[in-house]
């Protein structure tokens, strides 16, 4: 396949801060002089419903949508939503999953069921209780995405450095949020 771009799929539920995360990552890639395309959704789905956003960067990116089986990294901010990333996965795709669940008001899946399903595509799965760690250590739940991003960088799961992300945080967020987000970025390493 001619896929030389880096493809990230972020899944979660509306209100979890997916778009802020998208802005930070794309700014970091932009600062490196890379081409970027992203796609996000607004409106009805934002009210607690399933949301998926795409970030693609590299030399030249055409479609804002990640092609199926072409994701390099899937960040799932809610573990059942990791399944939404599955069709984008191949054997090299890294999944970083937040061990946190919100009710689906219908059929649901356990963490084990989700992980077993993802293992059909890839074994590179990292599941951590990112949210509870953020709540415990930082008394904050909104920064969970940034904590997951920091963890993914530790695992060398994306071609961006923490320094580049810190720079992007400072450029995309008001100063009063910097300290909290920088702490979140460094919070979880193992």
């Amino acid at each position: 396949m001619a896929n030389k771009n880096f493809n990230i799929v972020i899944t979660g539920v509306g209100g979890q801060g997916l778009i802020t995360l998208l802005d930070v990552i794309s700014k970091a890639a932009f600062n490196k002089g890379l081409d970027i395309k992203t796609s996000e959704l607004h409106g009805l789905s934002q009210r607690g419903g399933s949301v998926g956003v795409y970030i693609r960067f590299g030399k030249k990116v055409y479609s804002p949508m990640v092609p199926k089986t072409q994701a390099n990294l899937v960040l799932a901010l809610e573990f059942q939503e990791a399944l939404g990333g599955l069709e984008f996965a191949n054997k090299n795709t890294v999944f970083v999953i937040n061990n946190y669940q919100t009710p689906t008001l219908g059929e649901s899946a356990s963490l084990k069921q989700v992980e077993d399903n993802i293992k059909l595509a890839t074994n590179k799965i990292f599941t951590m209780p990112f949210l509870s760690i953020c709540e415990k250590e930082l008394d904050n739940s909104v920064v969970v995405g940034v904590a997951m991003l920091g963890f993914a960088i530790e695992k060398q799961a994306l071609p961006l450095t923490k320094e580049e992300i810190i720079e992007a945080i400072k450029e995309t967020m008001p100063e009063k949020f910097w300290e909290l987000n920088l702490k979140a970025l460094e919070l979880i390493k193992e």
Partner: protein
Amino acid sequence: MIQDLLKSNGKAILLGNEAIIRGALEAGLQFVSTYPGTPASEIGNSFYKIAKQANVYFEFSTNEKVAMEATMGASFAGLKCLVAMKNFGLNVASDSLLPFLYTGSKGPTVILAADDPQCHSSAQSEENSRGFSYLGHIPTLEPSDAQECKDFTKLAFQLSLKFKTPIMVRLTTRVAHQKMPVVLGVLPKPKAFLAKFVRNQKRFVTMPPRVLEMHQELLQKIKDIQKHAETSIVNITINQKSKIKNQKYKSKIKDGEAKNAGIITSGVAYLHTREAMDLVGMEAPILKLGFFYPLPEEKIKKFIKPLKKVLIVEELDPYLEKEVERLARIVNPKLQIFGKNVLPEVGELNPDNTAIGVAKLFGKTYNPKIIQPTKKLKHLPRFCTGWPTCPYWKLYAAVKQAAPQGTVFGGDIGCYMIAALPPHSLYDYLISMGSGVGIGHGVKKALQISSGQAQKQKVIAFIGDGTFLHAGISGLMNSVYNKSGLLLIILDNSITAMTGHQVNPSMGKDSSGEEIEPVKIENIVKALNVKNIAVIDQEENYNQLVATIKEFVNSGETSVIIARHICGLLAKRQEKAKKD
């Protein structure tokens, strides 16, 4: 991002909708009117924040027809105007939009319409606004990415100035909500506005017999624009020779099979096409159309003439495909045309389904090894939880407790649409802005004029404060006037919530954020001669709400309950703003 909108130059990551704003500002925009609707909402939201600084007049109009008329008026008076809305808004605005093409614009004017293939954030229909281009003879440009959003908008103002007609820029969700680095142009220095309305009945009064001449003049104008489109830089040929890159396919394909194939596409479908060619490992020359209407027919003829096969990649209805079929009959009757026979007509395109179509153009298949989830899970949108909570939880609990069995429930457009989904699963119909009460009247009337048990069946319709002011008043007036006796519950949470908390006339702030005397919904209802009116806070007086629903729904009179409690999200934000 929004803070980059007024940057002097350089490059910035912009959302498609933000790039539209930037393009308009670079063109010297003066007047903006809009009504919020996803995927166009950020245009209004951003102008609400930057209009003053950008030296632009901005308003949230009370609905899209009014927004269109505001822009028409400002254009007639000579200002440079932008009017923005989602696809369904264009339906609302169409009554004034169509004659606007007859009068033409005086101040250059751009109409921004955003479609939502796949209905990510739209109920009602998977509308394709390109139909309006034909219906109204509206010159229409289709950008594919954020850079083109900026460039095409700027160009649209130039075209409007040159041809004295409003130009439509049509987006889809994946363009409007796409971000990319955009090369910025120069922002003009702020100038004083010099509006002047010069009386010209021949131009602005669309009465017969003059209106027929205007129709003729419009058709001539479209011919002139078509000539211009033939050489416009927005219609480009990407001249790869047909070739096969992927070794896997190369060995299987006979010589000549991949030759003489081409692709015609526009909008975001172009980006998916480029991606799909990479996925499939095949290349073909592409004609990328920036003009959807009028089409550069000579350019298309020239492109298809030497081809054996052509694939039309477009979302939803096959408008381009039909045009290409027509043109092929003239220049290349043997041309094999692929389009909706290999691509979906329902739902949005993406690199994957486009790749299937591209592969078929070469007589091949595209079939990557996709692992599907064993369970299809979906978090349905729901009323917000946490504290302060969404007031609709209590409201719908009260409705379920109070409504007699067999009551027909009419939904409408806003956050309260969520009550159509589990666990509420409430509404019996849900159609369009303001239609809950309008259709409820028809249902109730039909029952009322029938014999037997039907007469006893009740109708309760719901509408939010924003939607009531947008399109609910005339429906309620009709129910009172023609005595159907339904109960309308107006959910007043003090904001236009679902599209992102825009101000509206009932919430005490105008379009520039300044405090104003709020429109009291109960005063409007009273003026319509509704006899039974109650204003109840469902969080404070739950039992009273239950009792009132029972009383009103059995009264036989058209009745209104205004359930007034602030949106939980808004309350949270207001609290936070106070703290900061």
